[in-house]
């Protein structure tokens, strides 16, 4: 591997916490989120030479993570499995950890995010959770900026309705 690729690899490691946060916002599940991050990291490393130094690594990784999620969701549907509901978090892990997982996943915001259609959820996750600018988020999702903006607006409106007031 070239030294540029080695540098990218260590940048990917540094990005892991943010990838986990993004994946949690996407999946609404701790276990699923880490599965998807793992797939995304493996894919990113395989295509590491395709990453262009000087472009944004976070957008590139978010895009790979999001695609990993779409693929995983599709193949689970095909296999007749659905994503683990929040309560199934109790069977994952053990003891105190499982309890913490279940509590976190039952959080109002997590539940509300899980209700959003995929397209709105990924827009909200990139902009509101990860803090990407609209342009970057649109690029990561491969959609025009106007599309991103309207998905984001609809998603936030729905969240406002589900979560009630602003607090």
């Amino acid at each position, binding site marked *: 591997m070239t030294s540029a690729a080695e540098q990218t690899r260590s940048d990917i490691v540094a990005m*892991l916490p943010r990838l986990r*946060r993004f994946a949690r916002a996407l999946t609404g599940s701790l276990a699923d989120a*880490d599965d998807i991050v793992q797939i995304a990291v493996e*894919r990113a490393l395989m295509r590491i030479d395709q990453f262009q130094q000087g472009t944004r690594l976070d957008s590139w990784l978010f895009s790979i993570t999001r695609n990993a999620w779409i693929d995983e969701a599709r193949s689970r549907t095909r296999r007749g499995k659905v994503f683990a509901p929040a309560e199934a978090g109790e069977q994952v892990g053990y003891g105190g950890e499982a309890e913490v997982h279940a509590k*976190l996943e039952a*959080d109002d915001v997590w539940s509300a995010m899980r209700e959003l259609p995929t397209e709105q959820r990924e827009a909200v996750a990139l902009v509101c959770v990860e803090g990407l600018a*609209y342009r970057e988020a649109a690029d990561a999702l491969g959609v025009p900026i106007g599309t991103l*903006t309207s998905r984001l607006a609809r998603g936030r409106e729905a*969240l406002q309705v589900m979560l009630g007031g*602003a607090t």
Partner: protein
Amino acid sequence: MSVDDEKLMTFADGELTGAEHAEIEVALAEDAGLRERLEAHRAMRARLSSAFDGALSEPVPERLLAAAHKPREAEVVDLAARRAAKWSVREWGAMAASVALGLVIGVGTMQQQTRPMFATAAEGLVARGALSQALDTQLASDAAGAVRIGLSFRDQDGDYCRTFDLTQGATSGVACRENETWAIQLMADSSSGGEIRTVGSSPEVISSVEAMISGEPLDATSERAARDANWR
């Protein structure tokens, strides 16, 4: 003036500039209701971000660190990445241990009947003869001759790939368009599971499609269009 919610959101996110930005500033100064809506946007954003922030302070699980540090040589999961590598029986053995040998024998038998369906080239194993022709021209809805075509899709490099099924030899596989030929990505024994085989019915083929596909499989119309455009 009334400010629509999308514009207000754009303002709240710091995405408005110039005249539009100034316009909202003016409207905000005059309209307490608007200020409240703006506050709601900001509060929602803060709430969303803090709900998932736990991930930033938690230790990263070992398995993710291991995945990030795994040497590339060991990465054989993604079949698409294998396309650059030259095909060898030994490599296949590692990937699809139980099927490789039977397959090669099967191919040998088939080659006695007609023109060979496979050849090795710079791309690795490539389709020839009836297989190549079927991949070029045959649609999933066409009656099967020696080859039945299953799914057509684009891989993550944007190249077209198709699953196929040999009507004799109990073999199914995936081929992708590469340098004007069809490079075989995977073949697997599809004989298990009964006398009637559906295309791509072998688990190896299904999982390789899942690993390679980008977007949805082509529908009949796009399949025909892609064929008419010579899979470019």
